């Protein structure tokens, strides 16, 4: 079936089965490989994109439900001021180990900072706990989010 979707400000018409998850349309039909397949169950967050600004697990979002929403992927998130700030903070803090989950992490972090400019540690926990990092770069993800928010990067949680 034919669907017209709006990805990173560009309209694309694709011919796929209606139950095809958005992730696979992005990756294999549109060749936008930045969003990653981790689990296909909405549990790891590697596939996170924004649909109308909301962080969404694209591996469990059938293309038939997307309609004309604005979809933003890791390839496009840097065009927003917040997205760019998050990407820069990721490099400055040197977050990445293997890097496989980081597109999803950056998408979730950008959505958090767009909605909440000065997140607390609890806010970060709540917004980011849907994104697994198997390399466990959590210490640096936390620091990078704070850096992007202009907050002190030290871990301020009580010990």
């Amino acid at each position, binding site marked *: 079936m034919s669907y017209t979707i709006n990805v990173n400000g560009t309209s694309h018409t694709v011919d796929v089965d209606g139950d095809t998850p958005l992730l696979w349309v992005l990756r*294999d039909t549109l060749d936008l490989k*930045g969003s990653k397949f981790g689990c296909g169950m909405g549990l790891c967050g*590697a596939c996170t994109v924004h649909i109308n600004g909301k962080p969404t697990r694209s591996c469990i979002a059938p293309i038939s439900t997307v309609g004309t929403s604005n979809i933003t992927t890791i390839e496009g998130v840097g065009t927003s001021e917040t997205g760019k700030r998050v*990407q820069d903070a990721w*490099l400055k803090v*040197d977050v990445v180990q*293997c890097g496989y989950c*980081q597109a999803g992490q950056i998408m979730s972090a950008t959505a958090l900072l767009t909605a909440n400019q000065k997140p607390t540690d609890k806010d970060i926990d709540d917004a980011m706990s849907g994104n697994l990092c198997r*390399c466990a770069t959590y210490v640096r993800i936390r620091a990078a989010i704070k850096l992007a928010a202009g907050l002190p990067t030290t871990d301020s949680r009580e010990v």
Partner: protein
Amino acid sequence: MATVTNPRTDDSALSRRAFLSVSAAAGGGMLLALSIPQDADAAVALASSESHPEKDAALNAYVTIAADNTVTIMSKIPEIGQGIKTSLPMIVAEELDAKWSDVHIVQAPLDKVFGMQFAGGSFSTPMNWDLQRRMGAAARAMLITAAALEWKVPESDITTSQGKVLAKDGRSLTYGQLAAKAVKVIPPDMSKLLLKDPKNYELVGKSVGGIDSPKIVVGQPLFGIDVNVPGMRYAVFQKCPVFGGKVVSANLDEVKARPGVLNVFIVPVVASTGLPDGMAMGLQSGVAIVASSWWQANKALETLKVVWDEGPVASQSSAGFAAKAQELSTQVPHKVIRTDGDPKGAMAGAAKVIEAAYSYPFVAHSPLEPMNTTASVVDGKVQIWSPTQYPALGRTLTAKTLGIPEDAITINVTRCGGGFGRRLGSDFMVEAAMIAKLQGEPVKLLWNRNQDLQHEFYRPGGFHYFKAGLDAQGQLIAFTDHYIGYANGPKASNSADLAPAEFPAKYVKNLELSTSTMQLGVPTGPMRAPGSNAHAFVFQSFLDEVAHAAGKDPLQHLIDLYAEERVAPPPPAKGPPGGGPFGNLGPPFSGKRAQGVLEQVRDTSGWGKRQLPSGTGMGVAFYYSHLGYFAEVVQASVAPADGTIKVDKIWVVGDVGSVIINPTGALNQCQGAVIDGISQALGQQITINRGRVAQTFPEYPLLRMYQAPQVEVNFRLTPFPPTGLGEPALPPVIPALCNAIFAATGKRIRKLPIDTRQLKT
């Protein structure tokens, strides 16, 4: 800065082949005397295949300098998140005096010119430190020679800095201007190169961000799963849920009728490859579904019905093994692997004897990028793109399985979305190659997440039955362990062995280590700090019990234990503890280095000096593996109502020698390793039930952001060559956590994963 002098200036053009042979031989052979066959043509092709072949000058297999000053450095080791693609080229660039912003790093494909190429054992740094320094220094020496000939001045009047050659008289040339001439000089004697004094390092020892990170944060395709090959099809492969089971029949036609499905076929088992390593397990039987999209191939699995011959492993279960281990623990061990002094006599005469039984489960690596490989088989030639930690093993396995020569196979190594040892196995690679061959088209094979969890090379579980005897002063005078693990035939299962040098061996006068085994049909393999990740938990937890039984501070108890070797060293084992088949890469174990990190972590953590609320405790552990010394303190709180554990903070002190090559990467590895260990201890367990894995991915909890503790890492620099960091920070964190829980609650964790129900009060 130290100046490299080259006594042999010779303007005659040495043939490129001869030159590359020399540099490859010198480079590959120095540190380990490994036999590196030369393949100069391959090295030429490699060095010049990137960017501008007509202008590039390959000074050796690792260093190519273009006229525009771009310095291309080959990164020989697969990148799995350990940061090696940044840190090894830093070493080359340091000795070369290259400008880092001119450096372009290329992932080397599998090629014998690079010697051993695998990511495992934290070996990459100790095996390549000297080699990479010399490859950089040799290239620099050739540039100096070329400049000396150009300017007609002695080499001693020439120095280098930031990609330039500088003469005393003020003249200078960039590396790019000299490269074409430098190629023609006779390379220096690799064994006589003068290397920089580390105090003059400008790059090594400074933090450099991950070389691929700018591409990663914008979503560029770098991973195996991202590979696109023209005309490529997509495949899934369903194997028997029972390990070693075979397809009898399947409803192929019904599946073929599903949307997008192009082909469905049974792949026969080619199980015997004659390769000694269990991880080179041959191709398993299964059903391949090939479709126009991966989603369609995977979706078609819903329709697939297979009649399996489950085979003998179907009778195996974790519960059965636990009962069998219990039974074996009351019997004479199958094998005594070490006896010092008179353990039985000393135990009988001890003032106090404590006993404890410990166990840990099978664990899956679960890297986030599921297993995948893209393969193309055309006219008997195989092209492979694979996220692999061990491309050479994959190539051998593929060649044997497909019945073709190894040189018909090209392996392109992609970035790996995590490894942790999982990708040392090559099952996914050989499957992709066979499916592509049978399909007659390029195929990307991708496993789904549950397949990934249920077909692994698991960290083997194990059972330990300990006994310790203390004298009236609380001194540990006798120690025994009966370890009950797994075997395949006469040999311990992969990564299930216990080294006779396992601490406290040598540090207790009367000691016995013994083993018994149970036959296992489940594939096992190395997982981050193999062996050590399990043995650290049991030995360092039980030693904490010993300290408490002796009424001693656990941290001081460890320092005291490491004070002197009480038993003369036996003949050297086959490698360092936690080492492996590649011999001794570093100096022998030093109790002083162990004490050093313990003393430092006592200070950084405020051990014994901090007031902790009720329900909160600190625990300590030390472990030596992969040539690294790590002492760690964990502070954890336990909620009395439900036993929930909160890990507050981890203090890490590591000793990996004299230089931290890339501090930001080094810290990242340690932060990740300790949180990885906490993740294992808190929730990870693979249960075998009727020969298959009981868990699906939702039942295999990996640690998340809200559970991630603070981590403080410090390095203690000691005058030894630098060693690797992918693994050694992990093992001690698990016993440190369990010891912290004991300090917080008085309850001893003797089984992983931690059952919080036992911590309720």
